């Protein structure tokens, strides 16, 4: 080795000695990122972690012995990319989606069963209280139902008006359906989001939802339209109210986690509750889409009370079976 070779920067020699490994790792990462991981041979796949560790070792050597900023930055970027590909991989989207319906969602719903019970109880309490109040004094009705929601369905309305409201198809079916969906989604998401305020607004919103229902019944039942109203509500209401109850349960879960964090820090407790609740909420979105379709289309097309009730009841039974009875298929461990 001549004196000239020695004078070459160590960075230069280092590049020559190890550069081949880096280039191979880089081309493999390119393939994987472009979704061509399946084309790699098993030999190459076995080589990947080896090349990754070699690159990491190059990085730590370069940091200690080389002042070539470009080299260090390149190795940092290459190691980081390799790290996330090796340690950050997860199942493909479609398998993940299947897993969500087969396991994650029902499991999350089961986990909040206590909160769900409380939420349902709040809706029922609201409904019963409002029903009794409006029956004893009809002026209470206006405290629960605003003008824009009532649309003429108030205690002074005639039998014909009320009957018509149950079976007539409003104009613009589709817009109505999606409006309902957006409205319900908004209610559900508020139930969830305000869980952060210790769940108090969530509880109030659940009771309010119950009150609205109770008030409607108090108007329709005296006119002999109780059963018909039940059919009108049931076709979509079982799904929708269940969804709102679950959203409320998710909100209550977060509220309780913040109020009573137990052994965890308040923040960590909120985060872990947030994960479960997030999963529940994702499912609530699906349920509300179903409810919106049933309400917007099904209710307008089907006007027979018995069929309405059968669809609503059937939907409720299916949801209950799906959430609480059908065994979960855990499949692969969490990924």
């Amino acid at each position: 080795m001549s004196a000239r070779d020695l004078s070459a920067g160590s960075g230069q020699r280092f590049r020559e000695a190890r550069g081949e490994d880096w280039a191979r790792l880089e081309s493999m990462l390119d393939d994987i990122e472009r979704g061509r991981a399946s084309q790699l041979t098993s030999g190459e796949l076995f080589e990947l972690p080896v090349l990754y560790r070699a690159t990491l070792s190059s990085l730590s050597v370069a940091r200690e012995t080389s002042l070539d900023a470009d080299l260090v930055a390149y190795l940092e970027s290459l190691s980081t990319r390799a790290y996330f590909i090796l340690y950050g991989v997860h199942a493909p989207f479609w398998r993940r989606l299947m897993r969500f319906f087969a396991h994650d969602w029902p499991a999350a719903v089961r986990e909040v069963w206590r909160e769900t019970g409380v939420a349902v109880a709040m809706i029922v309490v609201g409904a019963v209280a409002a029903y009794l109040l409006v029956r004893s004094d009809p002026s209470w009705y206006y405290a629960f139902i605003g003008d824009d929601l009532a649309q003429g369905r108030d205690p002074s309305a005639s039998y014909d008006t009320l009957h018509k409201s149950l079976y007539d198809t409003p104009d613009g079916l589709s817009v109505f359906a999606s409006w309902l969906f957006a409205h319900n989604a908004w209610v559900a998401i508020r139930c969830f989001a305000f869980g952060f305020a210790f769940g108090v607004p969530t509880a109030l919103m659940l009771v309010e939802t119950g009150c609205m229902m109770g008030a409607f019944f108090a108007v329709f039942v005296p006119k002999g339209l109780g059963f018909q109203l039940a059919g009108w509500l049931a076709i979509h209401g079982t799904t929708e109210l269940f969804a709102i109850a679950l959203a409320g349960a998710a909100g209550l879960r977060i509220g309780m986690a913040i109020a009573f964090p137990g052994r965890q820090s308040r923040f960590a407790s909120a985060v872990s509750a947030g994960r479960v609740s997030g999963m529940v909420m994702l499912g609530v979105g699906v349920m509300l889409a179903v409810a919106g379709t049933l309400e917007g289309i099904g209710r307008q097309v089907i006007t027979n009370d018995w069929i309405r009730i059968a669809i609503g009841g059937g939907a409720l039974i299916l949801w209950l079976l799906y959430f609480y009875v059908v065994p979960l298929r855990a499949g692969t461990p969490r990924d």
Partner: protein
Amino acid sequence: MTERRHIPAAIKLRREFVTAEGIDLRLQLGSAGERAMAFVIDISIMVGAYLLAGAILGVVFKSSGEMTQQTLLIVWLLAGFALRNGYFIAFELGMRAATPGKRAMKLRVVARDGGRLTGEAVIARNLMRELEFFLPLTFLFSSWGESWLDVGSWFAALAVVLVFLLFPLFNKDRLRVGDLVAGTWVVHVPRRELGRSVGERATRPGAEPRYVFTDAQLAAYGEFELQKLEEVLRRQDDLSLIVVARAIRGRIGWTGPDTDDYGFLEAYYTALCERLERGMLFGKRRANKHQQG
């Protein structure tokens, strides 16, 4: 011109991130500007795709019956909701953990604890976006002028939207509320090409050394200056080459040939680099020219 301000910002957003092998990858967090730009790109793509799909459906089913059209309208409206939520989740669950907007800005979503990015985390951070951004926005637009909402409440709602929107600016990790809940953060992961090493030409084997520096002349600078010199040599901008060469000649009292600025700087870089790297091997480091070697 932004060079001076850029460096402190980059250091402020650098985070220690130790791999299982015990090496710190020194992650760079995405800046608020990059995040905002990525979001704008994503929104544009989604709105564009949505409107295009609507236009195509409109043309194809123009002459079909009212019932079909109504159904299509419902499907289209519901698809909007699905697109808004599915777009982010589907892309962030992918191999690169980034939406097209984030890819364009070289960003990627990463679990803060260094573990793998779980599906729950991706879902949680994107559902929170629904709460943080889309719903309040829909609410603000749809409720303006409605009788049941007075102006005061409307502005209160606006304030809530702004708090969520500006939240990343008020914490040092640039976390959205969604990131906070999901335990993620967004890092800047640029793809870099390995450039030619500077000074390669000056050290070509067999070439006669045109410049020889004394030890005292090499002791004039430290690592910081070396790296600045490397930048200048890579950029090969004539004006800076002249200015830098003149400054170095002045400082080290150079009396040799001074016609080839680039050749001179390259030779000086190589010699200085060699000297400093040799010092490093013996545990002697010199951060900059103000520190005694």
